[in-house]
């Protein structure tokens, strides 16, 4: 039976969505390694997908899909083993469009329609991140730092100093994990239909964690680095059935290791860590999203 399944990609700018798509396309098109899903046919902007995949194969940085344009890419795949065929629709939404949801508090009705179906969600976050919610409480012995810099303890001059350096708040200041919680909360409420969806959290740039304790435990990474999002997912299991995957589409640092990466067969550069994942198989999270539907 041919099932048409629409998966939705959610992810803020620079979260690795476009590079993932480039690597995924190569994996299922080149058929170099074992993958759970195999290519049947492609629909959509072929020029775009060819351009980004070409860059990826050459170990070049894949530019972000900037601007509010939506690149609708559909891939027909066969499920290895069962022979079931499915159409995977990836509205490659610009990360900027999700930032705009946060700041303008509105979304396109095409986004709403894409979530009306029976597919899952791939939520992209990056492991290669700066902490964007740092407070002065994170700084050890702040008062000592003040003394070293000659900051006056006098309240009046403190307020004057604060006033001079203070920037106005804007929606863009909201930390990424808070934005992601907001994006998920949006789709829990009308007019979005209330349903339980599978949600694959894709922690991209996983190669930066090679030597860390989390190297094989993406859920633990999420718990420690995006604690608010992790708690939210844990407590909303009636809406989201969650798996967390660590993925590196590039396989390493292009600036430091490009020559080494170029020696590998492209498919074998890919890193994918998580439940039921064959080595290098970026289709595993997509396969999980579509099984038991």
């Amino acid at each position, binding site marked *: 039976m041919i099932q048409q399944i629409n998966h939705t990609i959610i992810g803020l700018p620079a979260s690795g969505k476009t590079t993932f798509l480039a690597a995924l396309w190569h994996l299922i098109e080149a058929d170099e390694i074992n993958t759970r899903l195999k290519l049947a046919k492609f629909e959509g*902007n072929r020029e*775009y997908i060819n*351009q*980004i995949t070409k860059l990826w194969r050459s170990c070049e940085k894949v*530019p972000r*899909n*900037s*601007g*509010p*344009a939506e*690149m609708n890419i559909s891939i027909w795949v066969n499920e290895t083993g069962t022979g079931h065929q499915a159409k995977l629709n990836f509205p490659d939404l610009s990360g900027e*469009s999700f930032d*705009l*949801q946060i*700041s*303008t*508090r*509105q*979304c*396109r*009705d*095409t986004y709403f329609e894409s979530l009306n179906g029976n597919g899952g969600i791939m939520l992209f976050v990056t492991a290669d991140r700066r902490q*964007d*919610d*740092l*407070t*002065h*409480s*994170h700084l*050890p*012995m*702040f*008062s000592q730092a003040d003394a070293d810099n000659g*900051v006056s303890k006098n309240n009046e001059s*403190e307020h004057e*100093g*604060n006033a001079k350096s*203070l*920037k106005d*708040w804007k*929606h863009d*200041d*909201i*930390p990424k*994990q*808070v934005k992601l*919680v*907001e994006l998920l*909360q*949006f789709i*829990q*409420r009308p*007019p979005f239909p209330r349903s339980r969806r599978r949600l694959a959290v894709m922690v991209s740039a996983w190669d930066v964690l090679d030597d860390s304790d989390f190297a094989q435990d993406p859920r633990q990474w999420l718990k420690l680095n995006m*604690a*608010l999002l992790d*708690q*939210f997912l*844990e*407590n*909303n299991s009636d809406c989201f059935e969650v798996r967390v995957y660590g993925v590196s589409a590039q396989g390493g640092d292009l600036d430091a290791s490009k020559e080494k990466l170029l020696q590998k067969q492209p498919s074998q550069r890919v890193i994918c860590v998580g439940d039921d994942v064959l080595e290098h198989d970026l289709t595993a999270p997509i396969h999980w999203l579509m099984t038991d539907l």
Partner: protein
Amino acid sequence: MGICANPDCNVGETGNCSEGHDPLASCPFYGKEIENDQEYDDLEDEGASEDVIEEDVNNSQKGGFIGLPSGEALNEHQANDFVWRRPIRLIAIVGEQDSGKSTLINCIYFKFMQGTFADYSFAGSDTLVGFERRMHLWRIKSGIKRPDTKRTSLADGIQFLHFSLGNVKGDDRRIDVFLTDRSGEKYRRVMDGIDNIGEIFEIAKADKLVFLLDGAKVSTPAKRANATASVRQMLKLFIDEGVIDKRTCVQVVTTKIDCIEKLEGDDKVHVYEFLSNFERQLQDRFEQQVAELRFFKVSARDPDNHFEPAYHVDDLFASWLDSRSAVFPVPGIEDLPLRRQFDLLLARTPMENIP
């Protein structure tokens, strides 16, 4: 060579996007033709505006767009709409200006950003933007040199900050909590008889009524007596006016105890003795007139980082979510005329009686 709807782009001649998009197909205007500049402006403006839409346009559709919740702190009407949908715990936080009301709210949000807190875990919030606005002066990216909390404006009226929480200990029950945030100036105006006590309606409706006593003032001899007098007088006024009674759970929280702890020797001892005496006096005078009277000492945020954020706030927060109900049932509640929608909060059934 391609075509582009941007009249300023020469991609057809140069092969390069004037806005730097690469690949070209990623440009929203590439490959499109526009007949006039007005259509280009429409394309550029569609979804590109970053102006905040101030009016809540939840569920409204405007020209291909769907409105989303604002995420701001709730006003009275929005809070009442919420209560129609789900029961809540209402925690009314009361105190003079700079007693630490907003800082207390911030530190709880700060802790949930890092993980579970007081055996509760974050399950969602309708007011994340409200929290984030308040957190701005804590964050390094604000550019501020020394952490601060923005003073709540009298003009803002009352605002409600919302947490939806799960219990870490495995109970599947979700608890929705509203924390009130109102300018201390309002409470001062009511104390001075300038404003009507009925305007601070959250006092009568609260599951927990939390008075904040400014520990920084307590640690200062010249300000100590007035600081405690303010709490005592507010409590007496609320009891005398009948807005709180034997159904009310009252807490007196001394904030900024980092200021007291920084005192040395006899000064510190003397302050703690003074506090003990004050708490004992409140107990003797008011304990029999309310459901319960408890005391806490906390440091929400020590600017000098000698105390961790939310020091002892976990015990306070857990007490807000305990299952203690009012000692006496609400008499004659069925006879209350519900003139305003928000009167629903007056008619709220205690949570323990909800099946």
